[in-house]
């Protein structure tokens, strides 16, 4: 098997990120874990966008994954991070499989609005349930990973390493999926779904599969974010969170599985810097960057990378 460039880049990135793990300062570990987690959610969104569908409610799975992970700890008193992650993926993939049956029939703005409605239902439930801490949410603290007890203080670093492996592994799997028969059908559906139907493929099945993948990735991302922050709150499911994911997807572009991570890393870095130096104009900066991208770079930052690559060749 010959390795394509994306696979090589993923492998190199994984090795570098893992090798750096013991030496990185605490704040950078935190930042990178968060960027990886959010990049994962955006990766799911990108899979969905390949079919031409934009979900304005990915916060549903992000929030669900975060709460599922936290609840495993709080309610079942299982403090193992691996169990938490598994619960998050199972929960969000399960919900996506149910909602997907319905949502896969919707297109355009109606898809965006119905997914928004579902995420706001979750938000409404979380905000008003005092057992789950209402608007404040609650803390979670994982003490072991897959049965191995973690030394106190080093948990975050371990979660970071796990996130690197899981996220880049997922990115590779998605990369393989997108270049498979099914994955290529998605783009065809975006261009003209009637023709795809006439050619004998099931549009519903592809959209459904992509929706479930997006949901599962969203849940996993939510769980990693919860582990990194050590806290969950309803804001994770709010529409502005979903909007942020769409923003990062546009920022990075949908051309490559690496693009969401490029987008998420830049987004988190800019956010950190802006919070430090210009907290009052942070949202404005985001808005202006977004408008500039839509106007001048509609294929996202990745198109710059792609251009460099083709020049190099």
């Amino acid at each position: 098997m010959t390795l394509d460039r994306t696979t090589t880049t993923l492998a190199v990135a994984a090795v570098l990120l893992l090798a750096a793990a013991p030496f990185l300062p605490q704040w950078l570990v935190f930042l990178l874990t968060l960027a990886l987690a959010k990049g994962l959610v955006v990766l799911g969104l990108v899979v969905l966008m390949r079919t031409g569908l934009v979900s304005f409610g990915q916060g549903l799975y992000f929030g669900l994954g975060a709460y599922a992970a936290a609840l495993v700890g709080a309610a079942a008193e299982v403090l193992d991070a691996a169990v938490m992650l598994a619960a998050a993926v199972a929960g969000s993939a399960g919900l996506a499989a149910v909602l997907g049956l319905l949502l896969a029939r919707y297109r355009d703005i109606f898809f965006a609005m119905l997914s928004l409605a579902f995420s706001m239902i979750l938000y409404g439930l979380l905000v008003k349930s005092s057992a789950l801490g209402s608007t404040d949410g609650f803390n979670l603290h994982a003490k072991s990973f897959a049965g191995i007890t973690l030394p106190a203080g080093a948990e975050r670093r371990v979660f970071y390493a796990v996130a690197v492996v899981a996220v880049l592994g997922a990115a590779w799997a998605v990369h393989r999926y997108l270049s498979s028969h099914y994955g290529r059908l998605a783009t065809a559906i975006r261009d003209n779904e009637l023709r795809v139907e006439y050619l004998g493929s099931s549009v519903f099945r592809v959209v459904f599969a992509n929706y479930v993948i997006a949901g599962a990735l969203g849940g996993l991302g939510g769980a990693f974010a919860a582990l990194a922050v050590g806290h969950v709150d309803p804001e994770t499911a709010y529409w502005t969170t979903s909007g942020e994911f769409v923003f990062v997807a546009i920022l990075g572009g949908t051309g490559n599985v690496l693009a969401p991570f490029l987008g998420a890393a830049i987004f988190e870095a800019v956010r950190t810097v802006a919070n430090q130096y210009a907290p009052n104009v942070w949202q404005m900066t985001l808005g202006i960057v977004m408008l500039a991208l839509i106007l001048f770079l509609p294929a996202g930052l990745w198109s710059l990378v792609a251009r460099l690559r083709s020049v190099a060749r």
Partner: protein
Amino acid sequence: MFDLAAVLFDGVVYSSWLFMMAAGLTLIYGVMRILNIAHGSLYALGAYAGASLVGAWLAGGHPPAASYALLLAAALLVGLVMGPLIERGLLRLMYGRDEVVLLLVTYALFLILEDVIKLAWGVESLVVAEPYALPGNFRIGKLAYPVYNLILIGAAIVIGLVVAWGLYRTRQGKLLLAVIHDREMSAAMGINVARVYVFTFTIGAALAAAGGALTAPAIAVSPGIGVEVIVLSFAVVVIGGLGSLGGAALGALIVGIVRSAMVRYWPEGELFSVYLVMALVLIARPKGLFAAPEARKI
């Protein structure tokens, strides 16, 4: 029985407020195919402008009775300044893109305006309660209600009737309906579509600002008020059917009454019930209650 009357009244008050927001939103979508997230910021701008104008007026020792006119003037001002500015300055460059891209454009605009509002008015909340307290209270049975609520309902009805009259009975309105029906054909028949766009967006912006300005006396105007409003108005217009004025009115009534019933009987369900209704309506009628059927284009 009495309980029911109170719930209904609360619901209708809430609906009036929602309708002012939703009417503008649905009009803009109908004509321009833009689901305007920045509508929430225009609402907030209206609220801030109204509160500042009335505050300055009262501080000058002028008669408070005129503050109602000032609230409306503030809304009109916001509409006339922001409407053409946004449409000509930004949206014009984006026509022809996907509806979802346009949604993102207005999301970006929303982010920008949120900070503009914070920079202009600071993060302190603004309270101008005089117009709210001035007309006194009235009673339904044992409960006292501010008369201002009746003013709000009246304003919503008047606004609804004026917009409906303008849309169905005037020449400009009929041009607008033609554009809603088929933009390309209207342009081919000689309608100045660009002018209709500016006109529509200005009216929509003024309606959002009116919703904000008229609510301002009843609340503490503070940063972030637009964030909640916008998803609620989305729920209203999606339930009613995007682009339909009657649908917006019905959607506002449904959402308003569902919410007030929930607040009364099961407060925990307040927020999620609204979106549950939205999801259920979309499941049963994918394009909302009053949406016109569309030809399927290949």
